[in-house]
């Protein structure tokens, strides 16, 4: 009996001891992708899932630290901007190898840049570097230096390299040879991916142990968020990267330690009216939508506080403009969210000849004000917001029809046929720098949603925005750029081509088994420090 007890104690001790070892390395991290990655080519990654794979596998020259929002060295140990912001020179780390053992050199950087800037590739990452026509030149310099020269200065150039995963020029594995913490070990299309630890990853922890700690990452493709949530509560997955508000509350109720609210994110939800002159709308409706008073009145009739409180259960805040307050440097702090004030709204409307008649708002010519807002189907939050706005607007005698459409139909309406009146969508924004919003604000751009691809700006204020956006892009002086972009924000606030509704909070849930997780606002919220994460013993042992 005694002997048995001793054996038991011994075994327990061994088990505990080995657990402690495991706590630092090994195990399989498990989480869900919401769709299949469209490509494993890091240069073409555009969807969420592909970007996740790129983040976990790609090695980049420099990395934006998602917590401090500062730029940090990765494959490059240092870098320098010269030539008025047209040229950047990197000093590369010596003696690195790709996941398949191919040595890494400046040639790989040159190859990657050449691939990336190939105009036939149409890479969204590459397009971010394309400020003007002309060739991008990459020179391989001695002592592992590489110099890249662009035809024109690019504001915030160095930060753009955070998105450029370096590919091997020589490896037979092509894009599957990587420099990041993991490599794609298994890819069962439509079902799951398994990423294996890259044995050649360059970084080590302060104790000299190789990173990353976690042996492998399993990504299950799981579109259904309810099932994802269920699996989290069961302990089958370790975290949910971006959590919906109602699930967040559920997590809080279950285990507050798992829930993380990092505050307002950079993403915004907004609504806009179709101001395209050639659209098939009747002319009186075009007149409404191009009227600043009309747009301002609609904006003032929407109770943003209620949207944030009810639809997002308090995990959102009324939006002010194109820049979220979370973007500390670029946000124009002088601006406030438009208050809910239907009296003022009616006053504005009366300036344009609108009047209430038996509780129905009519325009100068007696047309009852009725319009539709389209939004993408399947997004509960947008549908709910639209329904709440419907009731808000009925308060000033406007009949709003909410129409949910599947995404391709919606895109066709807002980009091709322009057969829509209002649209409610969200803008996903990862970039802090306003240059990333260039294509949204330039009146000639395709992404200038309310009236895209204009030959000459339709309004004076759009002319002004064009001028300011170009001005901020052509200088490297942060103060001057900030001043210009502040003005853009002010004009946008006054004219409201986009009626900004709310900024959602960055919500996530992380199992206590994951160590060293510090969810942040910037994507990828939970696993931005993937190489530092580790799993506790129980989980590591179970795997």
């Amino acid at each position, binding site marked *: 009996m005694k002997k048995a007890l001793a054996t038991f104690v011994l075994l327990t001790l061994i088990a505990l001891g080995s657990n402690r070892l495991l706590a630092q390395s090994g195990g399989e991290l498990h989480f869900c992708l919401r769709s*299949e990655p*469209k*490509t494993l080519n890091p240069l073409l990654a*555009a969807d969420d899932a592909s970007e996740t794979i790129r983040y976990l596998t790609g090695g980049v020259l420099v990395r934006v630290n998602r917590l401090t929002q500062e730029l940090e060295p990765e494959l490059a140990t240092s870098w320098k901007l010269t030539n008025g912001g047209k040229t950047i020179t990197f000093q590369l780390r010596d003696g690195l190898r790709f996941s398949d053992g191919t040595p890494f050199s400046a040639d790989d950087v040159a190859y990657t840049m050449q691939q990336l800037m190939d*105009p*036939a590739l*149409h890479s*969204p*990452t590459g*397009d*971010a570097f*394309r400020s003007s026509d002309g060739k991008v030149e990459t020179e391989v310099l001695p002592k592992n230096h590489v110099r890249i020269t662009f035809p024109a200065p690019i504001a915030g150039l160095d930060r753009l390299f955070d998105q450029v995963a370096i590919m091997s020029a020589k490896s037979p594995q092509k894009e599957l040879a990587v420099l990041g913490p993991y490599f794609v070990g298994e890819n*069962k*299309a*439509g*079902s799951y991916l398994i990423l294996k630890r890259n044995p050649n990853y360059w970084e080590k922890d302060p104790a000299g142990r190789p990173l990353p700690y976690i042996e492998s990452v399993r990504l*299950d*493709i*799981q*579109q*259904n968020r*309810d*099932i994802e949530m*269920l*699996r989290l509560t069961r302990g089958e997955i370790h975290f949910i990267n971006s959590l919906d508000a109602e699930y967040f509350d559920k997590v809080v109720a279950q285990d507050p330690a798992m829930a993380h609210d990092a505050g307002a994110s950079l993403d915004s939800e907004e609504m806009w009216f179709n101001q395209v002159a050639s659209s098939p709308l009747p002319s009186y409706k075009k007149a409404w939508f191009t009227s600043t008073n009309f747009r301002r009145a609609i904006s003032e009739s929407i109770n943003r506080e209620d949207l944030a409180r009810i639809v997002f259960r308090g995990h959102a805040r009324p939006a002010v403009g194109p820049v979220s307050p979370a973007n500390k440097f670029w946000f124009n702090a002088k601006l406030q969210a438009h208050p809910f004030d239907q009296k003022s709204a009616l006053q504005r409307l009366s300036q344009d000849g609108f009047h209430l008649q038996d509780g129905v708002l009519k325009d100068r010519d007696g047309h009852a004000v009725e319009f539709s807002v389209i939004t993408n189907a399947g997004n509960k939050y947008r549908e709910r917001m639209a329904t709440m706005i419907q009731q808000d607007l009925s308060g000033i005698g406007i009949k709003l029809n909410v129409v949910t459409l*599947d*995404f*391709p*139909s*919606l*895109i*066709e*309406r807002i*980009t*091709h*046929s322009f057969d829509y009146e209002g649209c409610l969508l969200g*803008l996903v924004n990862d970039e802090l720098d306003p240059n*990333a*919003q260039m*294509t*949204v604000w330039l009146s*000639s*751009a*395709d*992404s200038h949603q309310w009236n895209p*691809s204009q030959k000459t700006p339709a309004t004076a204020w759009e002319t002004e925005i064009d001028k300011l956006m170009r001005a901020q892009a052509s200088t490297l002086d942060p103060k001057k750029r900030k001043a210009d972009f502040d003005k853009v924000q002010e004009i946008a606030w006054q004219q409201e081509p986009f009626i900004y509704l709310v900024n959602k909070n960055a919500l996530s849930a992380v199992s206590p088994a994951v160590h060293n997780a510090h969810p942040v606002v910037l994507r990828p919220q939970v696993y931005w420090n993937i190489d530092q994460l580790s799993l506790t013993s129980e989980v590591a042992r179970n795997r």
Partner: protein
Amino acid sequence: MAQPTIIWKLPAEDIYTRSALPKLAAKILVTVLIGGFLGATLVRLAPGFGVDEEELDARLSDRSIQALRETRDNEPNLFVFYFRYLNRLVHGDLGTSRTLQRPVLQLVAERLPETLKSVALGLALGWSTGFLLAVAIVMSRAWLLDLLGGLLVGVLLCLPAAVLALLFVLAQAPARLLLGLVVFPKIFRYSRNLLARSSALPHVLTARAKGLGNVRVLVWHVLPTAAPQLLALLGVTVSVAFTAAIPMEALCDIPGIGQLAWKAALGRDVALLVNLTMVVTLVTLIANSASDMMGKTFRASEA
């Protein structure tokens, strides 16, 4: 023994002649091709064809967006488009999926087995439970059982598929079985009604009155009368199961052709959709022709 009221008289059908099979194959081929063409037409005419979610990516330059629009196979003439497709098909090329950027043949080959497995399991489950329950109810003539059966089927019909899927996950049951629950109500309902009618026929009642056992009545009198319709039902349930696989696989993230079809639909991926329509048409036709043939053979042997 009572005379069966319904006597199967078969005009000399051509099912036994040698030319029947090639003829059937030709008919199936033509129908499948028409199916592909109609499928392509439906997709082409739907709004959102030729646009891409990526066009909303603000990072893309205008030139890239234009290029993106130009890469579409925007052949305006449907017949030209379909002819080109057929031409490639003859050369063994099913085209490339635009959304997944892989050859369609590869995608279908990868995923069809998953779906076939689900459909087979679902049908096995649906038929074994639905049909047996119907037989039990009709033969026992217990109204309480009938009531409960009706209620169970009612519950299954009324639960949205998403809720069922979630319940399956909660119970940690394999999601494939879900398909069984989707076809079960149909099988049960139809077979119960058909069997009930057959068992109410005069000759069955007489047989019963003469003291024939339940099993004998069932095997000798009830089933033969209802067989052609039940076989037709079998054929129909195959296509029902296939169609039901689309939302089921999309909900449960099973990588079969249902999930593929759903993605293809959302992405207006015409190459993929044409092929999937043809696959589904083919399966439907084979299932229905087989059940038809069995029904006719059955009648022939009865005659």
